């Protein structure tokens, strides 16, 4: 699903070069739930930005869903972000002037999907996150946990191939964080590929696999993946 080979990201100014990622190689298989951890400034966010095609790598290769996306133009990267990647941000990043329905509608409109299809998908996504009754509410009228659920619904509505979560519980209290994590685990059980950046070890252990980044390099990989729910049972049965 996601294959990075000798990936590098260098920020250059007139006087200094900063290596945010260096010689990073990583393979995420379809259906995996991977947690990316590391201290502040280690390159986690840069990794997420490159993985989500929000930034372009300065070296190496990046294949997403079998397609080399390392050197795509801006429009092509926008299209892939829209069609194949779902984002869940730490700060939720809902548009305050739009209600819940319209917020979830934003990426679907950029896909030029017809109205009936959009409405159907938004309804399903809201139902999935348990917020069907809040469709006409504005973000300011929701709790943090509810806002993050809307953000998850927005990511799910586009049926992405890859879900990228950036500290999805970072702005939530423990109870809300637990709810959001359970929701993500449920989504993973349904077959989604999830890459989650977090600095919280407790959250990281709930993923199948941990990837640790220090100074822009992958330094530690949990070789034995953990499985959840039906996937775990299926794996154990086949073993």
């Amino acid at each position: 699903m996601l294959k990075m080979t000798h990936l590098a990201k260098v920020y250059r100014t007139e006087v200094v070069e900063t290596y945010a990622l260096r010689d990073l190689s990583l393979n995420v298989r379809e259906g995996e739930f991977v947690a990316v951890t590391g201290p502040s400034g280690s390159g986690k966010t840069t990794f997420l930005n490159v993985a989500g095609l929000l930034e372009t790598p300065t070296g190496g290769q990046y294949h997403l869903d079998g397609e080399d996306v390392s050197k795509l133009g801006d429009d092509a990267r926008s299209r892939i972000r829209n069609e194949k990647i779902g984002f869940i941000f730490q700060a939720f990043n809902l548009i305050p002037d739009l209600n819940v329905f319209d917020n979830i509608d934003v990426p679907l409109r950029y896909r030029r999907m017809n109205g009936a299809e959009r409405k159907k998908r938004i309804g399903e996504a809201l139902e999935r996150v348990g917020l069907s009754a809040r469709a006409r509410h504005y973000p300011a009228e929701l709790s943090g946990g509810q806002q993050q659920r809307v953000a998850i619904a927005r990511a799910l509505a586009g049926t992405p191939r890859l879900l990228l979560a950036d500290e999805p519980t970072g702005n939530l209290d423990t109870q809300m964080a637990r709810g959001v994590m359970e929701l993500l685990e449920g989504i993973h059980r349904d077959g989604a590929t999830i890459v989650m950046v977090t600095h919280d070890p407790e959250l990281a252990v709930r993923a199948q696999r941990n990837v640790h980044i220090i100074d822009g390099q992958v330094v530690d990989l949990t070789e034995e993946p953990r499985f959840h729910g039906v996937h775990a049972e299926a794996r154990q049965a086949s073993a």
Partner: protein
Amino acid sequence: MHFGPILSAMRRNKVGAFLIALQMALTLAILCNALFIIRQRVVMMARPSGVDEANTFSLSNQWVGSPEQIGAMIRGDLAALRGMPGVVDAYATNAYPLRGGGWSEGIGLAPNQKHSSAHTARYFTDDHALNALGAHLIAGRNFTADEIRERSERDKAQPGVMIVTKAVGEKLFPDGSALGKTVYVEDQPIVIVGIVDMLKTPWVSNAWAEKFVENSMLDPYIFISKQYSYIVRAQPGQLDAVMQAAQKKLFEVNRNRVIEKVRSYAQIRADAYRNDRALAIILGTVSAALLAVTAFGIVGLTSFWVTQRRRQIGVRRALGATRRAILAYFQTENSIIAGVGALLGMALAVGLNLWMVQALEMQRLDLLYVLCGAVAVMLLGQFAVLWPALRAASTPPALATRAS
């Protein structure tokens, strides 16, 4: 196009959008009426006078002292002027087209008529006047030399014959030709012996005289006055030389005079329409300033919105919006605001014009100006929003993952 979400977002930021729409509406209302007035003035300033303006000039003559043989002196001057190299013809007169001041007269169709049938400018001329002015006789004949009489300001005698402009003929006799007809000036009968195509009145920039600006009558008189004007027509290309030589020539004939206001017709025209030109320039400048202020307002508010929504734009980019989509978002938003402003402005423009029609006797505003003004304001909006919208479109999608 994302009209629904854009409208929804605007509903939550009503004040800024409404103020810009209102500014655009006021701009449109003022712009339409200003352009309409400017257009009227430009058309008015371009109207032909009926004179061969490129080759003709006027010269104001004032005798010193109290000369008794003014008629003879004028004839002497005219003979000298007509004999000059480069001169086509010349005549003496009390007034001439576009002069700014002159005599007006009422013409009746019967003696003792209570109200005149046509109001006209009155020019004292001779048998050389039509040639000196370059006026086109379209019916009848010119004056003959023996029809020319002398007349002072105080004389009440009327000539037996006169030449009128086509406009006067049509006003007096709308159902037939005026040629050969007898009309009355101060209850004295006068026969119309000639009709010229056009000669404007001296008052071309005057609301009172605008109603009869094409109406002129020519009398076969030499104007006996201490002060009068010569009209001289030069050969093509000789105007400047003749203007200088004519003054010298007249002083050679008689030094007891003051010659002032030697003006080419280009100068006469410029003087006649000075106020109109100034008004057009002022209105044009104010309109341009208004457009600039409105454009700056749009740029300012949109720039503010772009800065305010920078993170939101980054999120949209992260969710799949292309740069073109962000550009289109702001252009659509501006189109909606400008559309509301244009509709409001069109109503205001018509309302303002109706008020001016009643209060200032202005003409009704051509609706084409309102439509063109609306299109101009919409285009202005699109132009003004372009820079901030391009700035918005360049927002990197990675902004979505940065801490707020």
